[in-house]
């Protein structure tokens, strides 16, 4: 009887404790939840709905247009061009900054005295305001006053108007993208490299892998698999969102050859205020980002089961 009573009392106080904990949990999570609803979920729902309308900011009337914005988008030259340019940009920046980041990481890791200074230098662009540095790059590559032009002229290579040449403009922007990302990727790779056990290299040594390339191919590269995947995914997402350099340097010129997805979205939505088409573009953008994120989740899942 007393035992039962005690147990009853204990579980009653345990219940009270659980209820208090749940109440506190809800209380603490409420601000976050409100913001998630107002700033994340509701806007996504609204964008989805807007993409089915012809709403224009300031207009008094609007109507549902079904999927017209999406079918227009798929036939829209500027949208398709922006998408193509974005893919080209990604296709240059991702391999460039991943390979260079890995190479720099491997070389930097072997240095003893100069390791810290190299790390600092390569990481510098990550910390700096890209807008300000874009203005500097624009000046550096200026075809009439820039120092790089005088250099190429002195070397007899002629002049390059990188940001004015339709065939070079994306390469020029990609060089800045790589310049900014190499140090970031280097740091991620360095973290991956330090996690590789030294004995693996000793074992490879005994097996006869004594050259630098052998060590890389047999130990470093396989062991870096998960890191590399992570670096590729994050770089892809960052490169896919290229906007700053385009907004400052080229504004989509020349001949729309540097129109990229976010810049076009910005123009349609926030300069022309065509909310319907801009919303459809936003949804397309979201789909791309989600696909990359899902691919990452899927690949990482597969990787961990070998």
């Amino acid at each position, binding site marked *: 009887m007393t035992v039962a009573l005690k147990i009853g009392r204990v579980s009653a106080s345990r219940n009270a404790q659980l209820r208090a904990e749940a109440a506190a949990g809800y209380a603490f999570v409420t601000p976050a939840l409100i913001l998630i609803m107002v700033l994340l979920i509701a806007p996504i729902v609204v964008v989805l709905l807007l993409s089915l309308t012809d709403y224009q900011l300031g207009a008094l009337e609007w109507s549902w247009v079904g999927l017209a914005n999406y079918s227009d988008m798929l036939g829209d030259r500027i949208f398709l061009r922006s998408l193509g340019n974005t893919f080209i940009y990604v296709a240059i920046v991702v391999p460039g900054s991943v390979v260079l980041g890995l190479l*720099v990481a491997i070389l930097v890791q072997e240095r003893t005295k100069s390791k810290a200074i190299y790390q600092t230098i390569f990481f510098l662009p990550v910390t700096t305001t890209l807008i300000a540095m874009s203005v500097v790059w624009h000046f550096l590559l200026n075809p009439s006053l820039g120092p790089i032009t005088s250099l190429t002229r002195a070397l007899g290579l002629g002049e390059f108007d990188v940001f004015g040449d339709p065939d070079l403009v994306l390469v020029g922007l990609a060089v800045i993208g790589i310049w900014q990302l190499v140090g970031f990727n280097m740091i991620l790779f360095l973290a991956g490299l330090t996690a590789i056990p030294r004995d693996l290299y000793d074992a490879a040594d005994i097996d006869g892998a004594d050259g630098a390339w052998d060590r890389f191919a047999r130990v470093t590269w396989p062991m870096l698999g998960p890191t590399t995947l992570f670096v590729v995914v994050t770089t892809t997402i960052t490169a896919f969102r290229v906007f700053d350099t385009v907004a400052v340097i080229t504004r989509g010129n020349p001949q729309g050859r540097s129109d990229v997805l976010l810049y076009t979205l910005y123009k349609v939505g926030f300069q022309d205020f065509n909310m319907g088409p801009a919303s459809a573009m936003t949804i397309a953008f979201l789909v791309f980002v989600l696909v990359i994120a899902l691919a990452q989740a899927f690949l990482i899942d597969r990787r961990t089961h070998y």
Partner: protein
Amino acid sequence: MSRATLRTDRLIGSAVSHAFLLLGAAFILLPFVWMLLTSIRPASEVFTAGFNPIPSRLAAGINYSEALTKSPLLQYMLNGVFVCAGILIIQLLVAIPGGYALAKLSFRAQPVIFGLVLFGLTVPVQVTALPIYIALAKLNLLNTYFAIMLPFFLSVFGIFLFRQFFKSFPQEIIHAARLDGFTELEIIIRIITPSAVPAIAAFAVFSITSHWNDLYWPLIVTTSADHATPPLGMMIFRDQETGSNYGALMAGAAIITAPLILVFLFAQRQFVRGITMTGVK
């Protein structure tokens, strides 16, 4: 392989690696060096300088004072400080209790809310920009500090980070605090938050760098110089100076990038940790 060839091999390898790293470092430093050199170069020399790096005489005083007087650079920087501080404070006030609740308190909606946080991690700000912009326009709130800060009051990354950090906090300490009569709020203020200082520092670096450097959103919601943050200010400055005064323009770029570079140089380890905590900005 003889020992001698092995040694020469190593020497060559070391030389090649140094050469490559030096070349890479030169590429990385080029814009910084050119920015600083141009910012102390007299205007007359900018157009004829070519690749000749050393200015014949110093014009730093003129260029920097021109950058500071011709455009409200200090105002932009103050705006940046204000916006970054406002964002960070709200983010912490929301994320620390939220992260604690998701890590240490059990309640029924917890997994759903955590799922929303994980989903939010994948959604870039450009996705929610249109509706938030329309709402701000309807409420007549464009061109305010509030408008620049609003979308970033929520940092799902912050919530996620603190949740992960608090997960490993010993349950016994929390339990003992409860037995001592601490309320959950007191536990957060007096036990959990002090334990999270390293995470707060890393998150602060991440948050301040992202918002000091952000252009997309300020460009959308502000049209005036009154509230412009440094990157937007840089754009306004560039547009009014195009072609005429590169010395002052470069001085302006140097001034705007200086604060973060200085913080980075003095607190490198924390800085790198803060930025690389997440791959996705």
